[in-house]
């Protein structure tokens, strides 16, 4: 180990996060590989190691001949200060080698608030932030993940974006790089070739012109470069790699358990939900595959907990059968099985009763809106009746703590819809009073609200987000209407959502703002202690950019969006139809009931998208 590093490690919090060496890590000889990759996660070890996508790509890339893929994460504050003072550049956890010397550095961009951390990590590696200032082929700075469905705000910094699921396109890209490195290609020659791979977006090959009002006039690709980049996805998840022999962290992380991915995509079509669109079509794994992967991962890791994960796990066709198979393995070994993100229906509660025999700690539901009208408008197929009847069973079965998540600021929301949240909470309390088996323990009902952020590639991509002031007015209204002391109301502060709203639908003119915020000290901004609205406002002002243009402006029907260059497979016409349906409080069926002709079958050939 580096002597300078050895000296500072005893002084930092939880140094185990910075040394690698975990069970399951992949070690190779540097002289025996041709391409060295850093999987960069713009957050600390605990968050990064909880990310399933990271483990999948790590496994796949390390199986490739001549490739060594390592992990590179943002250090905590104390460690960053020590590293900068000792002039230790950010390094790969496996080898301890400086990440700036690697061939490809791939950032996972799952949320907008991570953008400044990307610049900070590049700086810690000793690399210039801007793509144009990095002349050589290596290191190639790439990014993937759900927030790359609007890549434009990061266009100045990232050499190329990988759109969609990275398993296959990632390998295509690495092979191309491998050849380019051998042939001594320049960075610009390589980028031209990479742009020919389906699913790869090279922002420097596109020119953007603007109207005087600030909206986009035209986006022009260089000759031979595709006008739109279509996302990539894995057609058959049963045959796709799953990390059953992955890295097992030696120190505690956020999700310290085996995670089984039941399916990708979602049959529901919640109109606010970006994941529900970009992950289409739904693709399930078979019970046999899942049960075997679960058993293998548990045997390999020694974890005492396994959880099922998907956008809407209770929509898995044979959830009950899968749970039976897993319980057969888990119970004799004292392994617990947990079921997150269940829908509020009776079936789910029955299943919870069966699976979680011991702790009946808490139930969490996300009705998202308080009134049936608004739930219909956002196509959240949850009725009050179903919610109350599920809770009736739950209360009768001994549960006494319920958390409910809502959004304020959804399109078409009125004050009546806001007050309806309080009314729904009261009805839940009444249900508890009527059906609870043990009233002495009391009931704990928590209502949480966050500020809705309209996202690209959704039915609400045209909508103006509510201002921070309006969100807070609605918070006050709701607070005044929640009078029962058994109900706790928590609301998220709107400042972070405001910036998220700017970045989520922003264009490449935001690059200088992001860079400025980072220079003013911005990083790890999804952690509230690191976020500062003032820093962002100062940067907007310095760049002469009005953030409300992005966050709070209603877009024209035919406006060219910055993210139009990305094709998620779902058509703009479908999204527009869904938006109209929202205005008419009209539900759309889920993919199992009827096809809504979203358009994704164009790219998902051979995929049975009826879930």
């Amino acid at each position, binding site marked *: 180990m580096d002597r300078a590093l050895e000296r500072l490690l005893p002084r930092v919090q939880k140094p185990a996060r910075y*040394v690698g060496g*975990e069970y399951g890590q992949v070690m190779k000889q540097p002289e025996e590989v041709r391409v060295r990759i850093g999987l960069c996660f713009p957050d600390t070890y605990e968050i990064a190691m909880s990310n399933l996508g990271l483990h999948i790509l790590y496994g796949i890339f390390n199986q490739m001949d001549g490739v060594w893929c390592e992990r590179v994460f943002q250090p905590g504050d104390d460690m960053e200060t020590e590293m900068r003072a000792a002039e230790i550049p950010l390094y790969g956890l496996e080898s301890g080698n400086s990440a700036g010397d690697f061939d490809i550095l791939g950032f996972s961009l799952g949320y907008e608030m991570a953008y400044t951390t990307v610049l900070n990590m590049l700086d810690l590696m000793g690399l210039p932030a801007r793509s144009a200032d990095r002349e050589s082929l290596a290191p190639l700075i790439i990014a993937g993940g759900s927030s790359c469905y609007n890549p434009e705000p990061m266009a100045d910094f990232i050499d190329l974006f990988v759109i969609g699921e990275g398993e296959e396109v990632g390998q295509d890209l690495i092979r191309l790089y491998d050849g380019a490195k051998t042939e001594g290609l320049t960075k610009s020659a390589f980028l031209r070739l990479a742009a020919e791979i389906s699913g790869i977006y090279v922002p420097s090959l596109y020119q953007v012109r603007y109207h005087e009002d600030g909206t986009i006039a035209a986006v022009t690709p260089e000759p031979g470069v595709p006008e739109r980049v279509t996302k990539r996805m894995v057609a058959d998840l049963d045959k796709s790699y799953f990390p059953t022999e992955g890295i097992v962290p*030696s120190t505690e992380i956020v999700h310290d358990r085996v995670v089984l991915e039941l399916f990708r995509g979602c049959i529901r079509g919640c109109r606010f939900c970006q994941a529900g669109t970009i992950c289409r079509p739904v693709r399930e794994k078979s019970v046999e595959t899942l049960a075997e992967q679960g058993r293998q991962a548990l045997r390999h890791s020694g974890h005492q907990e396994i959880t099922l994960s998907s956008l809407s796990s209770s929509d898995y066709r044979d959830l009950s059968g899968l749970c039976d198979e897993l319980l057969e393995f888990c119970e004799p070994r004292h392994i617990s099985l947990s079921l997150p993100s269940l829908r509020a229906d009776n079936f789910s509660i029955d299943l919870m009763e069966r699976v979680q025999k011991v702790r009946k700690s808490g139930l969490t539901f996300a009705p998202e809106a308080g009134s049936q009208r608004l739930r219909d408008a956002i196509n959240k197929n949850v009725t009050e009746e179903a919610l109350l009847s599920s809770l009736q069973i739950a209360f009768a079965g001994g549960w006494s703590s319920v958390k409910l998540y809502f959004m304020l600021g959804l399109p078409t929301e009125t004050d009546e819809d806001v007050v309806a949240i309080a009314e729904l909470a009261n009805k839940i309390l009444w249900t508890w009073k009527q059906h609870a088996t043990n009233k002495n323990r009391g009931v704990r009902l928590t209502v949480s609200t966050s500020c809705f952020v309209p996202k690209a590639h959704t039915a609400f991509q045209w909508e103006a987000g509510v201002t921070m002031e309006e969100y807070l007015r609605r918070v006050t209204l709701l607070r005044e209407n929640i009078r029962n002391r058994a109900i706790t109301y928590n609301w998220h502060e709107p400042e972070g959502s405001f910036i998220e709203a700017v970045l989520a639908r922003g264009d490449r003119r935001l690059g200088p703002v992001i860079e400025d915020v980072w220079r003013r000290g911005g990083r790890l901004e999804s952690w509230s202690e690191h976020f500062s609205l003032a820093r962002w406002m100062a940067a907007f002002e310095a760049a002469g950019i009005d953030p409300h243009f992005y966050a709070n402006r209603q877009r024209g029907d035919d406006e060219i969006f910055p993210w139009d260059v990305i094709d998620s497979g779902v058509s703009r016409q479908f999204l527009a139809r869904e938006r109209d349906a929202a205005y008419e409080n009209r539900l759309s069926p889920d993919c199992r009931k009827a096809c809504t002709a979203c358009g994704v079958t164009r790219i998902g050939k051979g995929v049975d998208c009826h879930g």
Partner: protein
Amino acid sequence: MARHRLRFTKTGRAVYLSHLDLMRTIQRVFQRAGVRIWHSEGFNPHAYISAALPLSLGVESVAELLDFEIVDDTPLANLPELLNAKLPEGITVLEAWEAERKVKELVWLRIAGTLEYDVLPDTGEFARALETFFKQESILVSKLSKKKEETQVDIVPLIQEIAFQPDGAHQVRMEAVIAAQNPGLNPNLLIEALSQQAPELVPDFVRVARVEVYDKDMQVFR
């Protein structure tokens, strides 16, 4: 008392695992190796394992003892091989046996250390000065108790032997036998004594390793 005991090393990158992390890791290692060990009862059963002397973060060791109890038919002799295949880098099981002695009979620890001095004119002289310092009849060191109150400890009765040797231009080697428990001497307190009473001898960096464990008669404890 759990019936079985093993000795393992904690070296290299593994020295940065906290005691809690280490315990969780070893519980998982038994699970990975498919060796069933005794679980605590109750709502949340967990594998019972107990380290004889928790090791401070950053300290290396080749003499860590861990008590546990196998409840299936895995032969003890196979245990090191089974577990070593499943352990993270730096942790290696050396041997496993039927525990006969109680952990409280463990009285002394042998430690070896390297004291690094970035600027040092004469390591021999420093080694002699260090030895003279620790040969005093009493060395009172103030430290914070668990309740965060300042207390004074005389560390001399807790040191059975201590020696310093020059090792190259910038290092002094330390070998010592110190009290293991009730009360034990944290090796950090040796350096703390220097910084309180002989700051000119405080090294720029210290590396410490546990080498062996003994009973009250200085017989190797197993």
